């Protein structure tokens, strides 16, 4: 069952259309929603959340129509907004249990669940302090906690690593990966940091100017045609490139001591060829990997 869908959806801000005649389906699992600024990703999410009214067409979430069953939908979805959105004067426990109560949980369940979710998100003793005293990393975790507290089936994460330092990013991505795989929650991640999306999502949907331009699994989209490898040498070596070309390889790109090589489909064991060419040209191979198109390349191609 599609987790969220739009059918010929048009949404306007005043006079200006943000999304025009969009038909898209979000499958189960974890999906990355990508697109340049102004592509309509935020508009689409806000329509699903009920913040915006569709001008024409329809949208549905978890099988429920956005136009008619908005309230019911919001019982089963959670939003982790991009900006800071805490309610001042509360500590983490009050805030998250308040969010739970707003979602309809009875007060005692909300409190218990708040603790459970805060524990899962990695907030220990700090949960009893006022939210104003929190660092960015902790605030992001609370945002995630308030989205999870009522046990939603669909989670919208808007720039989950916003403002986090490298350690915080690693932790948050691990958390998102954990939630989106094996916990039976569907996740839609909206982010401009494509490696984050690669890390956490199985599928991506790319939008541009209110239209859908590409979709598919990350694995399939990143596959290159033929046999391609990325090779890194100790230092740049034109002799190596000549030697490897003799084996029938095509040099696709060279950047410093790194290069991307391609052979025809039937080639087996490219590693041996690389080693031989290196031995012949006295170069030292430091890395050898099957080449994958980066998600960024996929993205650039899709919106071009």
């Amino acid at each position, binding site marked *: 069952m599609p987790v969220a869908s739009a059918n010929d959806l048009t949404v306007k801000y005043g006079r200006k259309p943000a999304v025009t005649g969009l038909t898209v389906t979000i499958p189960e699992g974890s999906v990355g929603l*990508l*697109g*340049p*600024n*102004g592509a309509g990703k935020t508009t689409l999410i806000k329509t699903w959340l009920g913040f915006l009214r569709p001008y024409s067409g329809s949208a549905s979430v978890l099988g429920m129509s956005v136009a008619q069953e908005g309230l019911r939908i919001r019982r089963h979805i959670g939003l982790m907004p991009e900006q800071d959105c805490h309610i001042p004067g509360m500590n983490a426990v009050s805030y998250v249990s308040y969010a739970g109560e707003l979602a309809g949980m009875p007060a005692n369940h909300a409190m218990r669940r708040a603790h459970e979710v805060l524990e899962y998100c990695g907030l220990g003793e700090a949960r009893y302090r006022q939210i104003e005293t929190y*660092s*960015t*990393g902790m605030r992001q975790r609370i945002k995630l906690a308030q989205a999870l507290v009522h046990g939603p089936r669909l989670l919208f994460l808007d720039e989950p690593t916003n*403002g*986090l*330092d*490298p*350690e*915080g*990013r690693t932790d948050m991505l691990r958390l998102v990966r954990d939630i989106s795989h094996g916990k039976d929650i569907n996740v839609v991640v909206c982010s*401009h*940091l*494509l*490696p984050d999306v690669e890390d956490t999502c199985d599928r991506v949907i790319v939008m541009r100017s209110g239209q859908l331009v590409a979709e598919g699994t990350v694995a399939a989209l990143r596959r290159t045609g033929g046999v391609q*490898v990325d090779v*890194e040498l*100790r230092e740049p070596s034109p002799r190596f490139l000549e030697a490897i070309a003799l084996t029938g390889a095509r040099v696709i790109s060279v950047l410093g001591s790194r290069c991307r090589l391609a052979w025809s489909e039937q080639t087996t*064991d490219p*590693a*041996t060829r690389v*080693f031989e060419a*290196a*031995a012949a040209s006295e170069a*030292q*191979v*430091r*890395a*050898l*990997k*099957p080449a994958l198109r980066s998600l*960024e390349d996929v*993205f*650039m191609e899709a*919106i071009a």
Partner: protein
Amino acid sequence: MISLWRTSRWYGQVIGVNDVTCEIGPGLTALLGPNGAGKSTLMKLITGQLRPTTGRTLVFGERPFANTRVFRRIGYCPEIESCYEDMTGREFVRMLGMMAGLTPTVAERRTDEVLGAVRMTEAAHRKIGGYSKGMRQRVKIAQALVHDPEALILDEPLNGLDPVGRREMTALFVELAGAGKCVVVSSHILYEVEQMTRQIILMDRGRLRAMGDVYQIRALIDAHPHRVAIVTPRARDLARRLLEFPYILSAALDGSDDTKLVVETRVPDQFYDDLPRVVFADGYAISEFDSPDNNLEAVFRYLVKG
């Protein structure tokens, strides 16, 4: 161009920057560190917004604090998001250009140029209040460039930009650095920084942890020997074979079906020379191998978390 000598700055009891000595020259240097490491304080010291409590900070040979001569040669793109909401982008950039000492005609021309460089020419006539996050960021970058400064201090300059924008601005910074400017970029997104430059300054809790080329730094981190991950069908055999070399410290098998092997060594150069010989001699079919921790993120992790 920028030199700090035993510079410290604290706020009451809280230490911002603690005894930092470094020199930053032309080219692109990345300023890294966890939150609270003192990066913003360092940038404020360099751009003359703060005075060091002890030590000396010199920019172009002068003290930067409240020094208009220095201000004219430095461009700063701060992290803050609020702006003059009622001005248009163009007015804002032009105003800051004139504040930096450009005459009105030059300011007008330069405004056009930088707005083109940041791809904001069409939207420049609209009020900043109606800008999205990405557009504001571009305007901020534009105002840092408008007076053609010799040094650029950029705090999270790619924040809010979409992937296209990130690529464009990264290329812009690399180009400016290549033209001889001193560009300092502070960012948390390590994989992006890796693509921009190899020169890093790493701070942690106010102290300077490391400065220089990232790969050289990596080679010097003794506590964490180099790890090389190899994917091959006969991983266990290869492990046994490699352990015969005295410089291999450990070989760990990874993967439920014995296909992945991670070896540790302190002399990676030697290892990379010997590996092809082993492969040829015993006919191992290697599908991939690389060093998972020979990158900026590993350096960061090892040095900051200790």
